[in-house]
């Protein structure tokens, strides 16, 4: 039989003989690896989302109703949903922006509409403005006229719609049928939305002439953007005016903090796992002293014995890493679905990370006990001392 295959055989038999202990070690390693994997996946996905959001804004100021601040703070990360819909009065907004050096603006009204039994997020916009302000919208089909809609590519795939189809969307106050004029893809949030003319949205939600968000492109001639925002804020009671850069900055800052927290938690868990591996391993080595002495008496070199124990650590580490990856990506999927409302893709790089973490833990944790294996005196251990 080949020497490596024999080594593997012995290692597996030894692990199977001490089932309970092996399972315990495996559990610890898998848990640590799964934590690293899931936090890694979540935080990298969050980073991507934030970058996407920041890149997306064409306007430099955003006006939001004061009550919806929670959503703002997370910068479109969808941390929380708006519990109480809050609106801005459209006419007051228009009056103010008209004489405050705002060259372009777009009004948005966000809400949920129902198509049959399915609820979907929808936004009322002025397509003419959108076309001008958001040149990166890639539209399959044409720009819509009155009573026509644009649908995000992901939503279209879900509803199996394409340009030219008709969709009946119902709000709390009324329903209407729209012809889908085009399918939009931006790679961002828009892919999941249905866009209909602003007036139709207002009718559907029954909110009169209100909007939930206004994005402004303010000229900064003479004053800084910050001053401009402060002035607008004074003129618009009940609303919050933010610089887009500020939104980006807060969400990036928040992200940094969350990631730091995650890193700390991970470090603590890893240290705990390593020490528990170390204690279990040293127990094992103590228990197996007689066996080690016997192997040495049979003519095993110190390295030969070490190889057996390292083999056990490696097998445990790799298995733990594999199990941890499966577990961790499952957790990450769940978290992303429930908290961030996006589905996470499978990233095999994290399988490598997971295995590496688990392997390192297993080897580091057993380094100390290994040293004692190295030093063990065969005569004394055989006598059972």
């Amino acid at each position: 039989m080949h020497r490596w295959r024999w080594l593997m055989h012995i290692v597996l038999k030894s692990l199977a003989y001490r089932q309970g202990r092996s399972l315990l070690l495996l559990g610890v390693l898998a848990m640590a690896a799964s934590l690293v994997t899931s936090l890694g996946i979540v935080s990298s996905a969050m980073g991507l989302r934030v970058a996407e959001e920041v890149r997306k804004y064409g306007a430099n100021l955003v006006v939001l109703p004061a009550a919806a601040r929670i959503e703002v703070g997370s910068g479109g990360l969808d941390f929380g949903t708006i519990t109480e819909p809050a609106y801005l009065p459209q006419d007051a907004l228009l009056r103010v922006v008209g004489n405050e050096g705002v060259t372009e603006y777009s009004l948005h009204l966000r809400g949920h509409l129902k198509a049959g039994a399915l609820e979907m997020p929808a936004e009322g916009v002025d397509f003419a403005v959108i076309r001008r302000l958001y040149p990166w919208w890639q539209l399959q089909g044409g720009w819509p006229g009155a009573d026509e809609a644009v649908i995000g590519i992901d939503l279209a795939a879900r509803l199996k719609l394409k340009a030219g189809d008709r969709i009946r969307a119902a709000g709390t106050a009324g329903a209407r049928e729209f012809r889908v004029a085009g399918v939009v893809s931006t790679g961002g949030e828009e892919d999941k939305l249905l866009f209909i003319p602003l007036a139709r949205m207002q009718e559907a939600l029954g909110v009169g002439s209100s909007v939930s968000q206004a994005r402004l492109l303010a000229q900064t001639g003479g004053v800084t953007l910050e001053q401009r925002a402060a002035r607008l804020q004074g003129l618009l009671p009940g609303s919050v005016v933010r610089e887009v850069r500020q939104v980006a900055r807060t969400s990036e800052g928040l992200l940094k903090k969350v990631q730091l927290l995650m890193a700390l938690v991970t470090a603590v868990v890893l240290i705990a796992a390593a020490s528990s591996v170390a204690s279990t391993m040293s127990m094992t080595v103590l228990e197996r002293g007689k066996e080690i002495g016997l192997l040495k008496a049979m003519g095993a070199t110190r390295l030969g014995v070490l190889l057996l124990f390292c083999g056990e650590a490696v097998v445990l580490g790799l298995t733990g890493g594999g199990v941890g990856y499966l577990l961790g990506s499952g957790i990450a999927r769940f978290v992303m679905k429930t908290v961030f409302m996006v589905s996470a893709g499978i990233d095999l790089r994290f399988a490598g990370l997971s295995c590496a973490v688990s392997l390192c833990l297993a080897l580091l944790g057993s380094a100390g006990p290994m040293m004692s294996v190295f030093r063990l005196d065969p005569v004394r251990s055989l006598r059972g001392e």
Partner: protein
Amino acid sequence: MVTDIIETRGLTRSYGEICALKPLDLLVPEGEWLSVMGHSGSGKSTLLNLLGGLDRPSGGSLQLGGEDLMALSEDGLARFRREFVGIIFQQHHLVPYLTALENVMMAQYFHSVPDEAEACSVLERVGLGQRLKNRPGELSGGEQQRVCIARAIINSPKLLLGDEPTGNLDHQNTGMVMELLKELRSEQRFTIILVTHNREVAAWGDRIISLDDGVLVREERTRR
């Protein structure tokens, strides 16, 4: 002219203050069966560990098969153990999670490469052809000791050391084991050194030496 396989001059071993083995001069010709007698604490196990390369002497010289054990490194001693010596212990030390066959193959693995067919044939030779796949826990004391013998002779050692190999066995099993050793010796012509406190067992040897308190007190030849 028979050469001496073991040659010690003033061999001592002390643990701190306690001197377990006083200076000992011993010559063992190749192919001899030597019995070492003495009660517990007389230094006979210490002598055996020194001869098996498990322990290092505190003083004197120790030549085994032309090799100076004092000069060997730790790994050199390991190589010496696996190529030159086979050891049978009192408590039949076997690896608990391996079958009889695997225990024998383990010795092959450390020596060179595992060879299942050869290990099987040796186990058959010691009469365990039916018990290959049994773990030590499922074997009787006599069977376990025979596995140990198979493991000790699998690498064709020049020197077979036994530390009270029959200490835990009843009369019948003792007879079987000793008979087996005798047969194997006539086949493979290795040198045997058996440590025992049992006069009857010692009488199987060609020569008996007695140790007391680390000193050689008596030496006699048996009739064989």
